[in-house]
């Protein structure tokens, strides 16, 4: 089954870490990427800071166009930083891999990926 490992945290904290700690975080990601690469296709995405984002709001009424605003508003809480998507045998397998990138500055969520026709399966 395809799983996503999504990463949440405070934007900018990584950049404020001392170099040794940044290395520690990065080595976890490198190890996971090497591991996933051996197993087949995978996706890894790191988002730019929220300051680069533009928001498309749903129209207020049916005859209006969607409203484009210039960014998520002053959010001081955690934000969506990026994700991995790959094929894992089991939930435990996915969790095992998520552990490789766990660090005090990120909260991870492991969730199966849905498809319009049902869950994508490796079978």
């Amino acid at each position, binding site marked *: 089954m395809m799983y996503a490992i999504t990463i949440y945290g*405070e934007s*900018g*904290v*990584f*950049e*404020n*870490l*001392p170099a*040794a*700690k940044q290395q520690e975080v990065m080595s976890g990601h490198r190890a996971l990427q090497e591991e996933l690469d051996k197993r087949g296709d995978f996706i890894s995405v790191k988002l*730019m*800071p*929220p*300051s*680069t984002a*533009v928001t498309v709001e749903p129209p207020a009424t049916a005859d209006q166009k969607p409203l*484009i*605003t*210039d*960014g*998520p*508003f*002053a*959010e*001081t*809480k*955690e934000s969506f930083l990026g994700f991995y998507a790959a094929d894992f045998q089991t939930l435990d397998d996915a969790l095992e891999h998520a552990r490789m990138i766990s*660090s*005090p*500055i990120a909260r991870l969520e492991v969730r199966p990926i849905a498809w319009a026709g049902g869950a994508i399966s490796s079978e």
Partner: protein
Amino acid sequence: MTGWLEASFTTQRPHAMAALTRYFRDIEIAEEVFAEACVKALVDWPENGTPRDPLAWLLTTARNAGLDRLRKAQRQKRLLAHHAADLEAVDQPAPDPDELRDDVLRLLFICCHPALERQDQIAMALKIVGGLTVGEIAQAFLIKPKTMEQRITRAKKRIADNPVAFETPSPQERGRRLGDVSLMIYLMFNEGWSTSGGDIQIRVTLCEEAIRLARLLVTLFPGMGEQVALLSLLLFQHARRDARTDAGGKLVALEDQDRRQWDLSNIAEGSALLQKASRLNHLGPYRIQAAIAAEHARAASSEATDWLAIEAHYAALYAIQPTPVVRLNHIAAQARTKGAGFALAEMAPLADELDRYRWYHTMRASLLEQISDHRAAKAALERALELNPTEPEGAVIREKIALCEKNLRPV
């Protein structure tokens, strides 16, 4: 956990300091109680887990620490009586986002107080908002820590004597504050970027702090095109940090830089931000400068650069900022599109105004070299050398003079 939590405190610091400064109407108290809250967090968070909203946790803890203090301190009695109503109410630990963004802007604006010299404004922002130590700031400005300490104490006093209003600013006032704060951030970056010597690492820190503050402004005011453009401009510039000096620490001109050393993630983010800024209906100086930086960033080499586009950008910049230095930059681009002879003729009328500007003479020298007037080129370089260049600049100029002399010798 040491190191991990400090990074989070640094991230929260501007917001926390801003809200606490409004709450206590005093930067000193805000600094002290924020530090106290961080110390408490170092014990509490590893034990009970990091809170989902660290800012709210830090603010509540800092406020309560401050209130305890105020209740105890005799000298604060009057203040306590005055703000009794506000100070009792700890009902809303997470501040309202609208209020918070004006708080952060106010805190930065307080640092930009017009009674302070520019360098002291930057030092205040680094200390209060960035949380740098006095030692680090002193190192960045190449002065003794003791002197820096005195300057910061004096600056704090001046600020306290002439407080900035704590009411919600009018849109005009908000715009004015944004303009002043943006200029301070721009100059903070330039201070770090300038090559007046000193420890390279701490100067990079200055640039990074400026980027962090510019990013903060964009997060708070996502609809302000000039602030988005300022962040974009700083990122494009910062992308070149590793390429602008060689292994021996000597400066490398933009056209000679190894572009493979440019930081691609900075350039990518700068481009994304510039596109975002371009959606917003405005054309200010930061946006034009960012557009120029983007042209350089996307060119594979100096030859492959779209100099026509750059020339057009400088013409637009000159229309809103008609200064001789902008004009000189415009002419430098024209030298690429219309030739050295044309540029030299265009430069002539600026000779008096820019006589004390080193770059006028070094640029003239390189154009004169192009038309093989080695004698005049050498004279221009010697003039530049009289104008107190920094050590790395001086080294480059002397090298060029030697080259002129070689060219002057009969073969």
